[in-house]
């Protein structure tokens, strides 16, 4: 589905990503783990077109999307839930969701409200007044209303209590199965990665430093020690 080859990305001076190569197979949840400052968010932003790569390629199936503007990448079927959620705080819940379909027209599909019934009740509320968990649900729902093929999630568990993370994990699994969705999950929460991901790759200093089957990972695994320092 997504093939990243030898990707280099930097801000001004210095390169953050120094030759990242990885594959995200169709219909799977593939996790990317790593400590803060290793370039995980930079990679997400480059995938979404918010940062231009200086070298390398990003292919979505056969389509080269590296360096294209974000709205074209979105139109190709990529949706993004950024770290910190990127909610429009002053807009209502409904307006936030509508923005997810604004570009291609049409209405918010009903099944999104079925996945997130609380959002249906909160439709008219200002998004900034929602709880952290509700905001995360809104960010994911907003990404899903455009019926993407690839969903990029940057640290979705951040700031959520464990029970909410578990609930989000179950829902994501259900949606992936329902919609044949492919997910690129950037996460430091091992429990969530083990629960929903098939493969986990590790990003260290702007390069992929290895991978493992997600279900084999545990807090005691040597790779986790080495790359996450848990």
């Amino acid at each position, binding site marked *: 589905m997504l093939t990243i080859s030898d990707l280099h990305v930097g801000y001004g001076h210095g390169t953050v990503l120094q030759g990242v190569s990885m594959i995200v197979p169709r219909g799977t949840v593939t996790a990317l783990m790593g400590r803060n400052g290793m370039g995980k968010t930079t990679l997400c932003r480059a995938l979404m077109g918010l940062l231009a790569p200086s070298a390398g390629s990003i292919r979505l199936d056969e389509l080269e999307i590296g360096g294209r503007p*974000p709205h074209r990448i979105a*139109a190709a079927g990529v949706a993004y839930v950024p770290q910190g959620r990127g909610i429009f705080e002053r807009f209502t819940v409904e307006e936030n969701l509508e*923005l*997810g379909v*604004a*570009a291609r027209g049409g209405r918010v599909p009903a099944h999104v409200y079925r996945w997130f019934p609380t959002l249906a009740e909160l439709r008219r509320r200002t998004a900034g007044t929602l709880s952290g968990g509700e905001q995360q649900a809104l960010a994911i729902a907003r990404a899903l209303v455009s019926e993407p093929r690839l969903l990029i999630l940057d640290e979705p568990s951040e700031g959520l209590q464990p029970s909410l993370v578990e609930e989000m994990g179950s829902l994501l699994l259900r949606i992936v199965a329902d919609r044949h969705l492919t997910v690129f999950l950037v996460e430091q929460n091992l429990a969530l990665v083990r629960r929903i991901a098939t493969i986990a790759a590790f990003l260290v200093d702007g390069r992929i430093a290895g991978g493992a089957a997600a279900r084999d990972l545990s807090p005691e695994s040597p790779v986790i020690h080495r790359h996450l320092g848990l």
Partner: protein
Amino acid sequence: MDAMIAWAPLLLDALSFVLVLALVSLGLVVIFGLLGVINLAHGELFMLGAYAVALAVGWGVPFWLAAALAALAVGAVGWLISAVLIERLAARPLDTILATWGLAIALRQGVVLAFGPQSRNLDAPTDADVVLGAISYPAYRLYLMALAATVLIATLLLFARTRFGLTARAAMARPDMAAALGIDVRRVWRRTFVLGAALAGLAGALIAPLISVDPYMGLGFLVPAFLSILVGGSASFAGVLVGTGIVGGADSLLGHWLSPLAAQIVVFVVAVLAIRVRPTGLVRAP
């Protein structure tokens, strides 16, 4: 009762000035809010609207059609300015100030070259008076007020209620997130700039029969429009309207008793005081 009769025309004059000024301020504030661009050529877009309507009427086009065409023509000029100048300087506020300042000079001198420095007068489409109770008042000014108010409300509804408005507000709040949701932020910028330019052009066209049309008329509206935004606050449309009401109303009313210059000085002092008391504007963000 006599006092009412004496006051009513002054208040109506002030209201018509405020409504036209609000069109200018609103254009300025949507461009600033969305693109972060302080458009110093906005007064010249207003001036172009006045020239466009004067030219078209000279060619025999009926006034109201000419005013609509003037708004469209200035919108087209705005499209060009956005594509050639503004979008290339996005996220460089100081450069856009210099560039639009330079553009203002070029447009002014271009008009001087094409039409000469002298001022011209345009006849209103009607010189009838309407009797309102005890006073009679020029019908054209009443039409102007109705039209300006309608356009203001339509613009507010465009931003508050339509999908274009939603995407524009999103692009204003979080341009990166809006782009990641598939919104072509650059296209939204351009449309907004065109809209702001067209509003200025329409304002210039509507005011043309009431003032003398000359290449330097833009500044007389740009300065109070900026003051209005500073006084009212740029965070909301309500702020723009409140600021325009105070600045435009004071300017127009004081001009009846003081010299225009003295009126402007008073307005400036009041504006400075208001900004000192409430630096972010009288109307806070919602």
